[in-house]
């Protein structure tokens, strides 16, 4: 999937990744911590946090994980949910299925299952006014309804008044898609590390981990127009440097850069002390140039972010989005100084860190402003912005009523749509009893009528009663009966 395809329209992509990406059972102890802390208690097993390269208990690797409201945690297999009566659970050491009270359950995490969805020219991501989001195959849209075909729930008809935005996910072959191992990467001991302080990145389950000062780099053949995405999770104080468009696989100690082996210019993004992001242009025999910092106090409250760089060499511009919210755009007034096509990640002291979901694609290079105003706004592939009222969209064209009269736009030129602002359905959100998170990000809030291994029945204020294949989700959260928000899991 082409997640968070572009930065345009903060309104479009904001909250698409709320929840911080797919969960993983190994982080459940950390998640449990958030629940326990929420009660003013502290988890005795905090120090068993696993992101530092700990091997997950083997029996839990492919198990479902049941997290209770009191912070308890039990691995096993979900058998059934009947929200009015019980959550049935199979545990390998229990002879009988266990029935838990639904009101005691906070969430259930499921092992990641690869989505069978096929990205086509009709693939789209839909963001609802409620903050929910989903992906599917676009079918049609008129003044009442948007229809989308999904692999997990068939055809969904979503009320137009529920829509916030629609983004077409045009196929774009990835230049690099996912960390598969250490092969092809170059690790170098940091010259700046004190004796005993340097370490190595380790690989496990699609992610790199580091707990000590360490550098890992690779020529990823970054294109001139690039979308570079990855996830970072950490414990401690985030202190990561990311070099873009470098030609050197060796880390460069800034205070000794003139003595370092020759290297070409590159850009360095420094995530320091969990609150500061600094972009610097670094070149040999030239002073360091900071192109601007961004202070993000909210980052200190997080332990995981989705990082998304958009780069336009021609425009000398790099933008950074965190969790799909644009943080800053940097423009180098001296022109683009990156001389290579490699990336380098340097872990500096302060945290245990995990890198995953590294994906690099060519980008169309459109930097757009977010939509404003009460009407619909369409964006085209060429970057053009068209305000108006959308009458319909089908496989051939989009019909828009603009201030200059009605026009039609070929379907294949559509990039995205921001629908006129609507008021979220607060009544619906108050009656919902569950929220499910998709493996690829985003999620749905609904009334869960039942859950079985092959089918869950839900009622949504946005698309009515549907049957969903549970394999679509990696997490199912039970909303608190008193409607207080459940602590946001950190996994």
């Amino acid at each position: 999937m082409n997640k968070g395809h572009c930065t345009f329209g903060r309104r479009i992509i904001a909250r698409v990744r709320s929840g911080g990406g797919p969960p993983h059972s190994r982080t459940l102890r950390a998640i449990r911590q958030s629940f326990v802390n929420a009660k003013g208690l502290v988890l005795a097993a905090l120090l068993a946090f696993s992101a530092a390269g700990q091997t997950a208990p083997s029996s839990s690797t492919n198990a479902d994980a049941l997290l209770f409201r009191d912070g308890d945690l039990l691995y096993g297999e979900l058998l059934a949910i009947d929200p009015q009566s019980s959550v049935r659970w199979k545990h390998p050491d229990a002879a009988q299925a266990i029935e838990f009270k639904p009101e005691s359950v906070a969430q259930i995490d499921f092992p990641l299952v690869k989505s069978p969805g096929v990205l086509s020219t009709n693939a789209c991501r839909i963001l609802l006014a409620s903050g929910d989001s989903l992906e599917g195959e676009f079918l049609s849209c008129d003044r009442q309804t948007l229809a989308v075909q999904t692999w997990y729930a068939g055809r969904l008809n979503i009320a137009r008044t529920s829509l916030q935005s629609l983004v077409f996910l045009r196929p774009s072959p990835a230049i690099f898609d996912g960390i598969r191992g250490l092969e092809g990467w170059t690790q170098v001991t940091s010259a700046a590390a004190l004796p005993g302080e340097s370490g190595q990145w380790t690989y496990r389950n699609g992610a790199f981990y580091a707990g000590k000062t360490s550098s890992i780099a690779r020529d990823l053949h970054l294109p001139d127009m690039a979308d570079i995405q990855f996830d970072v999770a950490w414990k401690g104080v985030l202190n990561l440097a990311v070099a873009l468009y470098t030609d050197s696989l060796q880390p460069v100690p800034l205070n000794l850069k003139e003595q370092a082996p020759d290297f070409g210019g590159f850009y360095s993004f420094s995530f320091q002390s969990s609150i500061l992001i600094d972009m610097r242009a670094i070149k040999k025999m030239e002073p360091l140039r900071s192109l601007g910092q961004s202070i993000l106090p909210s980052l200190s409250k997080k332990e995981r972010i989705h990082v998304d760089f958009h780069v336009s060499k021609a425009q000398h511009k790099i933008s950074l989005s965190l969790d799909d919210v644009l943080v800053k755009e940097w423009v180098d007034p001296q022109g683009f100084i990156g001389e290579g096509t490699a990336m380098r990640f340097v872990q500096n002291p302060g945290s245990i860190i995990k890198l995953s979901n590294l994906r690099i694609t060519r980008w169309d290079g459109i930097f757009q402003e977010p939509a404003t105003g009460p009407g619909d706004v369409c964006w085209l592939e060429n970057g053009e912005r068209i305000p108006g009222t959308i009458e319909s969209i089908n496989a051939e064209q989009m019909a828009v009523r603009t201030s200059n009269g009605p026009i039609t736009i070929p379907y294949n030129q559509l990039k995205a749509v921001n629908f006129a602002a609507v008021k979220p359905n607060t009544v619906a959100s108050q009656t919902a009893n569950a929220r499910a998170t998709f493996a690829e990000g985003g999620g749905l809030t609904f009334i869960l009528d039942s859950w079985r291994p092959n089918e869950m029945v839900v009622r949504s204020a946005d698309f009515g009663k549907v049957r969903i294949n549970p394999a679509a989700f990696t997490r199912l959260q039970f909303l608190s009966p008193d409607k207080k928000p459940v602590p946001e899991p950190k996994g």
Partner: protein
Amino acid sequence: MKGNAALFLVLSCLVLPGLAGVRAQQPGPLFFVQPAANVPMAASVEGDLLEFVDGSLLHGELKGMDPATGLHWENPSARNPIDFGPAHIDSIRFTHAAAVSLAPTAQLRFVNGDDLLGSVTSLDDDRLGFSTWFAPALTFPRASVQTITFLSSNYIVLYDGSGDARGWNIGNRNPESWSFHDGTFSSSSPGTLGREFKLSGSSTIEFDLGWNDSFQLLVSIYADMDHLDSGSSYILDFTPKEVNLRLVDPTRQTPPKNYGSAPLPNPAGKNKVHVTIQSNKAEGTVAVFVDNVLAKRWKDENGFTANGGGILFQQDWMTGATVQLSHIKVSQWQGRYEPETTFVATNVDVLRFINHDQAGGKIAAIKDGKLSLAMGETLLQIPLPRVTQINFAASPAPAPPRGPWEVRARFPGGGSLSFQLQKWSDKEVSGRSAIFGSLAFQPGQIRQLEFNLDHARIATPAVINREFEGLDE
């Protein structure tokens, strides 16, 4: 086992001596945090804790257990009690294990990993006689014992806690300062955790210290809990890398006396270690051991001058680090030598003496207060008070395989025993030990029950915390 059939003891009156609550505390001059009202901690109300080897954990109550039907667990979130098999259970921690008052003279460490506190009554070529809290006249094979540690005179366990938080007081309470959960005190922000122990003699203070990031933990020993701003105390200043000792005496109007720092012996870079603080009043020394390795022994040339009786933990720095304390144990003793905290594995019997000398040979017997040591052709008669530790020659026999219901009980006050569990009811726990034969206890006498004894418990790596200039880019 000969003479040890069906041991059963009901300890009806087990109390901790002299653990009165403390009055409102005021941080002394070295403390960064502001004075605040003291808040006594409530006992944990979450019940017993069942932990699995895969990291699962369930609170609740053990209703019964036997090999035929499994472990009968009542969990408040479950509609009915759950029957678990033992295959993946790590341990059960019991919240309300009875407190115990012990005055042992020796600690036995067995080859199978068990240990007991009590008194050695006899030793010959084959068997060792021992008196302990649940049986006054045990005898068992000498080959089952790895080490005998003779404790300092008048050794008494004052506190073996972390069963609950009663008696502890928190200063500067805020949502992330000290709290208690599942046997562990945790703090993620500055605050104090203190308790009056009425320490008067020398002492051994032990605890497990865990952390997840750079931290600073101050441990005030022999602190005057009633007058923190005026009483003198020694303060051990722990960071992940080192420990420092200083003496604070506000009455002298002088800066704290600094005795210097020492690296924390933690070569594996763990983020959880066992800390032992030996305060020897007679010698005027304070020593810190980390995982039984001496970090440093400081000597106060003016003699041991701290005059309080309490212990105060204070997390400093606004680092966001979480510091955890568990298995806190405080014992008191008299005399010039400290209880040994280390032991050696040898192929001959090894004696350690109070002057720190060692001697190897074959221990023939312990009788009438003397130990007979055969060194070649010579048989030495050594007064037992001169001996601090006996390490028996390691047995070449491999350990027998453990069954699924072989469990290890850990007792309040110290000591642990493994046995084949036969039945656990609300009245009695029964089992059979390869060393002692049949055993029976009251459930309330057990603090923790471990399963799958050969399962490696997960250890975690430390977080790097050193800051330096010239970060790589």
